[in-house]
């Protein structure tokens, strides 16, 4: 059923253990001829093959414009690949069946300020996926919403509040509850803590760790913050100009990076250790 198996590394794993598989995924954007611009093609994602096992957290790191978010959109069925395909539990995703897709894969976005409807209460926001999927009776849904909000740590009194009455951390908790209410097994976390303050970031990272342990979730964790990635993930894939330039276990990538780009990314991390100065980066290799 899967003709692309040879393109992915580590093909010895039983396919039912693979939650998410990307096979030679490519997305090109056509640039229109503009006032100052010649027409052309941009390969935002260029032949990416990745596998994420069930219950695993894969960190996808790279800088702005490297194609991380384009990749995430294709996984969620929000953008059709130019070529290649995405398999969820061994089945190819059908962009026409977004509802079915949504049952198993859900996103958490960076900005909890723009990803929640300002005119609906917390309880309504989290209940929308259940309504769309016509799951249970009204009473069932109410209970499920209450349960999941309880799990993400939103006290009862907040359920009738609107997003503008919540702090950034609380909004991100609501976004996580909404993502989890359908009980998907894969979460695409696209920079989920970048917009949050440090003290709140730790709360959300702890929550993601707890949820993974409780529900056996599989995470694709997209981030530019290598400190957070090292803390959270099992394996790391490094993306640069649309391509995966290196992937490996957390230990491999952080202790023995091989690609010059990975080395440069790691060298540029500023840990809170005074006296080390600001790293000098050699950019000649790129």
């Amino acid at each position, binding site marked *: 059923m899967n003709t692309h198996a040879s393109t992915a590394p580590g093909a010895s794993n039983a396919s039912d253990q693979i939650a998410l598989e990307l096979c030679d995924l490519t997305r090109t954007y056509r640039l229109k001829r503009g006032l100052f611009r010649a027409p052309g093609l941009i390969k935002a994602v260029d032949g990416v093959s990745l596998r994420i096992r069930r219950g695993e957290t894969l960190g996808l790191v790279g800088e702005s414009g490297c194609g991380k978010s384009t990749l995430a959109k294709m996984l969620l069925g929000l953008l059709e690949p130019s070529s290649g395909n995405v398999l969820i539990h061994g089945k190819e995703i059908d962009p026409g069946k977004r509802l079915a897709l949504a049952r198993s894969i859900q996103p958490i976005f960076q900005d909890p300020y723009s990803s929640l409807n300002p005119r609906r209460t917390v309880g309504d926001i989290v209940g929308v996926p259940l309504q769309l999927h016509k799951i249970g009776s009204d009473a069932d849904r109410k209970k499920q919403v209450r349960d999941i909000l309880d799990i993400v740590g939103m006290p009862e009194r907040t359920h009738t509040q609107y997003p503008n009455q919540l702090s950034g951390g609380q909004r991100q908790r609501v976004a996580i509850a909404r993502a989890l209410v359908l009980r998907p097994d894969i979460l695409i976390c696209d920079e989920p803590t970048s917009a949050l303050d*440090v003290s709140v970031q730790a*709360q959300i*990272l702890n929550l993601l760790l707890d949820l993974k342990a409780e529900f056996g979730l599989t995470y694709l964790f997209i981030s530019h913050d290598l400190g957070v990635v090292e803390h959270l993930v099992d394996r790391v894939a490094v993306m640069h100009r649309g391509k995966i330039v290196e992937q490996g276990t957390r230990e491999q990538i952080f202790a023995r990076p091989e690609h010059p780009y990975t080395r*440069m990314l790691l060298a540029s991390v*500023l840990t*809170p250790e005074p*006296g080390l100065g600001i790293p000098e*980066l050699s950019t000649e290799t790129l």
Partner: protein
Amino acid sequence: MSLLLDIKNLKVDLPTERGTLQAVRGIDIQVKRGEMLCLVGESGCGKSMTSLALMGLLPSKAKRTADHMLFDGIDLQSLDERGMAQLRGARMSMIFQEPMTSLNPSYTLGDQLCEALRAHKKVTAAQARDRAVYLLERAGVPMAADRMRQYPHQLSGGLRQRVMIAMALMCEPDLIIADEPTTALDVTIQAQILRLIRELQKEFGTAVVFITHDLGVVARIADNVSVMYAGQVVEHAPVREIFAHPSHYYTSGLLNCIPVRGKTLPGSRLQSIPGVVPSLIGKVEGCTFANRCAHVREACIAPPNVQVDPTHTALCVDAVTLASLETA
């Protein structure tokens, strides 16, 4: 070294629909010539309002008061708008977070750089141009002479920030206020820009007030650090001291929140600070961190500003105890 900037008891009040917001609540800032002072804090702690207050760029409704505000002996409070305008750009300049919004899209870089100089000093167009090209080169902008004819949209974010730095240096200011200058940039570009700011600062002897929320940046770039929380400086110390002996529960809490390579076990629970920053509208009393602090007690109604050692102060009843703790 002499004090370049000496601010005592600075307060900024902002009127809102729900009452007066005390954005800055009595802070002291002292910066020596050539010093890098980092103001670090989370959103809403008043760090940006402080920088705007220093530059005289507060929103018109805001009310600024201070016991004194001295810049190289000049009383900033006595200056009118014209007097302030003469200082701004010439002797104190600012670098903002988002360079695209602070560059004018419809003028070339050359025009904007030269204007910064010619507005304040009597120089010929050719002299201004030479200095602009020189500073662009020093700021690491490749093909500087050609870039003078380019417009801001033709540059990447990193290059735009380099142009902003060159522009801030055009008049050889004594003080640069940099408000989150690398927050919008990628990590590799951030490291390059921070290096550049540090190098140019040393070369030109400029004092810098560097505003950031990133403790990693603070650790690597600061001489001295003021930690801000809820409109106050809750702790001030030299950079090594503040990371080795944090003496306020907020500072130590913040440091514990960040996963650090080799110190934090991957996948372990991170320490976090529960709760949120209190509202600064209306009357604010006692320690503002009390509602998030595990060690709160009666004495926290009036926290003393403890002199932990000659260079280290902390606004906490337990400051001395905290300072003596060995950090991991």
